[in-house]
């Protein structure tokens, strides 16, 4: 399957799990966003040799994975984008930082090894945290949360529009690529000569599409501002959820 189709599948898949009837999915999106950012910040803030501290933060993903009944495997798949980059940067640490700091079973472990492992754990946890957010919250709800955080309406609207048309353009691009590869069976990618026309066509089509969308908006009374209806209130359980995690994060970071 091509990258385009993969991306499409991924979007559909993520959407499906975000739509499930799960208690976690019904927690207010802003609360989940705040907890996610907070978790990542706390995790990353551990010093680079504090492997024990960072490891402890795993409590959050474990609890949410299990109680949210989310598939651990699809979260693992998402590591493939970011983990290589993190590893590439981390893998040099053992070479440069050779100060021994502890002994496990007679083998000296250097500070570099510890800092490399810490970095990797940080990377894995932060990817999991984002996964847990998007697997329980749809993009629209996240956009709603952004609106509550006073992110300008222009940006939010524009994210929503992009999200709406991503699947459409991915399909379009996928069709074009299929039509191309059927007539150029022995090529892996797009040949130099058609770079411009292939993407250019798609660009012009997209602009035409956008103009039509604009016309359709105009005809329905658009005056430069997207109307949003207030939806979703904070309930007691949202606040409790937030409070509980804050306390746990605080304990994990400071107390133990």
């Amino acid at each position, binding site marked *: 399957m091509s990258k385009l189709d993969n991306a499409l599948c991924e979007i559909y898949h993520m*959407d499906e799990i975000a739509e499930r009837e799960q208690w976690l999915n019904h927690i207010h999106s802003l609360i989940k966003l705040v907890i996610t950012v907070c978790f990542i910040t706390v995790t990353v803030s551990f010093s680079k040799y504090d492997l024990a501290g960072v490891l402890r933060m795993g409590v959050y993903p474990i609890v949410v994975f299990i109680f949210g009944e989310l598939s651990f495997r699809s979260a693992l798949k998402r590591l493939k984008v970011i983990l290589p980059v993190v590893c590439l940067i981390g893998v040099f640490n053992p070479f440069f930082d050779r100060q021994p700091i502890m002994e496990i079973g007679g083998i000296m472990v250097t500070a570099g090894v510890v800092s490399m492992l810490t970095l990797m754990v940080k990377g894995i946890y932060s990817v999991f945290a984002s996964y847990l957010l998007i697997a329980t919250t749809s993009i629209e709800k996240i956009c709603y949360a952004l609106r509550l955080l006073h992110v300008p309406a222009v940006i939010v609207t524009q994210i*929503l529009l992009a999200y*709406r048309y991503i699947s459409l353009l991915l399909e379009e691009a996928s069709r074009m690529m299929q039509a191309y590869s059927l007539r150029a069976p022995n090529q892996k990618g797009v040949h130099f000569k058609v770079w411009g026309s292939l993407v250019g066509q798609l660009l012009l089509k997209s602009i035409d599409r956008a103009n039509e969308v604009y*016309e359709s908006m105009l*005809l*329905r*009374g658009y005056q430069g501002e997207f109307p949003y209806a207030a939806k979703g209130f904070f309930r007691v359980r949202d606040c409790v959820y937030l409070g509980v995690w804050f306390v746990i994060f605080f304990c994990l970071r400071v107390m133990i």
Partner: protein
Amino acid sequence: MNPIQISMEHVTYSYEKSCPILKDITFKANKHECIGLIGANGVGKSTLLKLMVGLNTGYEGQICIEGIPVVKENFPKTREKIGYVFQDADSQLFMSRVYDDLAFAPRNYKLPEPEVEKRVRKALEMVHIEHLKDKQIYKMSGGEKKLASIATILTMMPDVILLDEPSIALDPKNRRTLIHVLNQLNPLKIIASHDLDMILDTCSRVILLSDGKIIRDGDGKEILSDRELLEAHGLELPLCMQGIPD
């Protein structure tokens, strides 16, 4: 109330100065009519519809919706009365969920939220897609999208509905549903299409366009059964009238 809802008088329009695409178009459309606008590809059907809603401007002649001229100053007024269904439902449905898309127009007109909800519910009922209320648009089928895009303009409660090729890319079942829905809608409808079978099933009056001019304006059955006339202007008899070949 004025029974004449749309009037066009001597309308000429061109994208490029040298070759006018519409020449001297004159017709009137009354309340509750259903008019089929037929003609070969590129004859100016869509252009004509776009002129009525003011998406194309700079025409000669006069276009009035319920007596109000379609000019820039009046757009807010005329556009409230008229609904335009795009050929491509994906352009019409730009919000992520059906409900939000249907609520777009009433919210823009600053209606209170309970009223918005009432209208959305009603519009969904009118096209029989109540079950799709909270569905994401990109997950819907072509037929569902088409019906939803008609519902988006029904929430404005328009007096006139313009449809550009509504039956394109629909399977037979969805097409039948569409025809059924169209026949139930009360406002004046103008349908531009070359699906003549659908026109025959929905429209009592037909306007035949060719080369930017109105060739014939009259009873639907009469025009659609005139083989010579249709073939002279790049069309064919509706399939149901062609008979089964021996």
